[in-house]
């Protein structure tokens, strides 16, 4: 857009409530910036029956200049007023014809707030139910394929599975261990404040060990896996969906669930208990550090843990991790395969994978709590 020169305008009343607007100079983005509010304000005040543009003095016109004239015409048409342009150079007139946008087509008016709210609520409920339905369906589908693999193990892509296990498992050991260490340390410090009042600091070891084995270890590890690998699964499969690689698999007769989802599921289920063990171990180390600072010898601390926590606590926690791993991988893969075609679709899928994964983990943990209560674990 040309960014130089100036333009001027004069308002002159005409008989019968009209006005003549004499434009001179260069109507470009620079000059129109100043003219636009002035013209629109004048127009609103005067409400002329007719606007006659005298454009004999217009030397050049760019898109901004044309936009001003088109806007004046539209305003007059809205107010049932007249509009005409006189004296515009032929070449500029030709250009205006080419760019004439006509009447602005307003976006279709939507329903009112109440209807929209009810509609939105209904849609959200429908999406929740359908989402739950598809998650359960998809997990069932994967388990059927898993049974097929148990019968014929060669059908699983083992090389891919180990590679995914390395990315989701081995590469996550550092963060899982760090989180475990910090949680153990913080939990021990926080509970020691209360325990000290009763001279019962030694029971901090019981509290931390049981919490880590039964709840915190599996949950924290599952949250890390969901945010680290669940999102990655959704993004990988989503990108493949956008690039039509999933369609290519289908047309080649390769089952995308077996080819893409199963290795991720096996890898996630395989690494989850191991990662959780790391998390628990470093949590206990963190707690041990606090206990040592209270003056308890390491042997006393270890003996206290052995008395407080049973193998049932440990294995009860590890059984959960298998289910959590399956949920994370299943939901991540499902969200990836549900990816749409818009540019933000892959990001949306990754977000939904993490959110759905975390919700599913917490729900499953609640179910485990009830089941373990009745089983006396």
């Amino acid at each position, binding site marked *: 857009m040309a960014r130089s020169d100036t333009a001027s305008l004069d308002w002159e009343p005409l008989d019968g409530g009209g006005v003549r607007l004499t434009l001179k100079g260069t109507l470009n983005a620079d000059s129109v910036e100043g003219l636009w509010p002035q013209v629109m304000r004048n127009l609103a005040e005067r409400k002329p029956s007719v606007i006659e543009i005298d454009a004999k003095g217009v030397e050049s016109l760019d898109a901004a200049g044309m936009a001003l004239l088109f*806007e004046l015409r539209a305003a007059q048409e809205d107010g049932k007023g007249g509009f005409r342009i006189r004296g515009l150079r032929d070449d500029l007139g030709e250009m205006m014809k080419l760019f004439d946008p006509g009447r602005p087509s307003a976006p279709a008016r939507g329903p009112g707030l109440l209807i929209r709210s009810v509609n939105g609520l209904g849609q959200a409920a429908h999406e929740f139910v359908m989402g739950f339905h598809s998650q359960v369906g998809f997990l069932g589908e994967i388990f059927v394929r898993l049974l097929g693999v148990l019968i014929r193990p060669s059908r699983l892509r083992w090389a891919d599975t180990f590679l995914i296990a390395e990315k989701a498992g081995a590469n996550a050991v550092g963060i899982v261990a760090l989180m475990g260490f910090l949680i153990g340390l913080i939990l021990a410090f926080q509970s020691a404040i209360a325990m000290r009042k009763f001279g019962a600091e030694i029971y901090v070891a019981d509290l931390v060990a049981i919490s880590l084995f039964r709840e915190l270890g599996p949950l924290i590890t599952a949250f890390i896996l969901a945010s680290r690998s669940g999102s990655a699964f959704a993004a990988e499969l989503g990108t493949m969906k956008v690039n039509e690689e999933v369609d290519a698999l289908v047309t080649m007769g390769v089952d995308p669930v077996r080819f893409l989802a199963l290795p991720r599921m096996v890898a996630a289920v395989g690494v989850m208990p191991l990662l959780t063990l790391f998390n628990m171990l470093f949590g206990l180390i963190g707690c041990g550090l606090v206990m040592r600072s209270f003056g308890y010898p390491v042997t006393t601390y270890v003996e206290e843990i052995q008395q407080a926590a049973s193998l049932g606590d440990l294995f009860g926690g590890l059984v959960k991790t298998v289910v959590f791993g399956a949920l994370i991988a299943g939901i991540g893969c499902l969200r990836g395969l549900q990816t749409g075609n818009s540019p933000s679709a892959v990001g949306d899928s990754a977000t939904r994978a993490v959110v759905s994964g975390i919700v599913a983990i917490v729900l499953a943990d609640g179910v485990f709590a009830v089941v373990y209560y009745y089983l006396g674990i």
Partner: protein
Amino acid sequence: MTASNAPIIQVRDLTVGYDHHVILQNVAFEVRAGEVFCILGGSGCGKSTLLKHMIGLHQPMTGSILVDGTDIVTATGEERRALLGRIGVAYQNGALFGSMTLIENICLVLEEFTSLPRGAMETIARMKMKVVGLQEAGHRMPSELSGGMRKRAAIARAMALDPKIVFLDEPSAGLDPITAAQLDDLIVELSRTLKITFVIVTHELPSIFTVADRVIMLDKERKTIIAAGRPQDLRDRSDDPWVRQFFNRQSSGEAV
């Protein structure tokens, strides 16, 4: 398709490549104001790379690229920004921002380069949409458009600032023949009425003969321009067997 003789783009002794790997060397040519200029060549010969250097996305190894009086290779930040206000680029897949309507896509450029009121920007956006024949699609999202409509919308956005030069990367690639022909007609119409200079990267033969005033042809093996001139002349009178093969759409160079 008329063109004045004044060059608006001058490329001199240009060598481009990545990581010491030379793709094109000693490339020199001029684009005249108002003409439709096509850059041709087989796949992988460096057409799009050359275009990306001409719009300043990449720095060449050596040489200079003068675009409307500014050397884009050595330009300062301010000079480069001023130049960006005088050129428009439409990418192969449109590169429209998926989270915005078409009007918002165009207004984004206007917001960056002008201080016009919002109403003025929207009117300008609608004007540009009308020119490319999408006046009813202004409030639609890019994902709701067909491939041809997306390319038209990309051209509308490229023209947001009334540019002197518009660069198009493979405008007709992947379009059906009718849509491709309509797009070619649009380019010719815009060149004729608005005197915009078009630099187009393409290898679509029907488009080349419809829109191009002049072309240059690049070659992957020789890494430079192997032919330049009017497309009809190159097709009918070139001595280079590869050029004849390209224009006559032959799979081998032996047949004439």
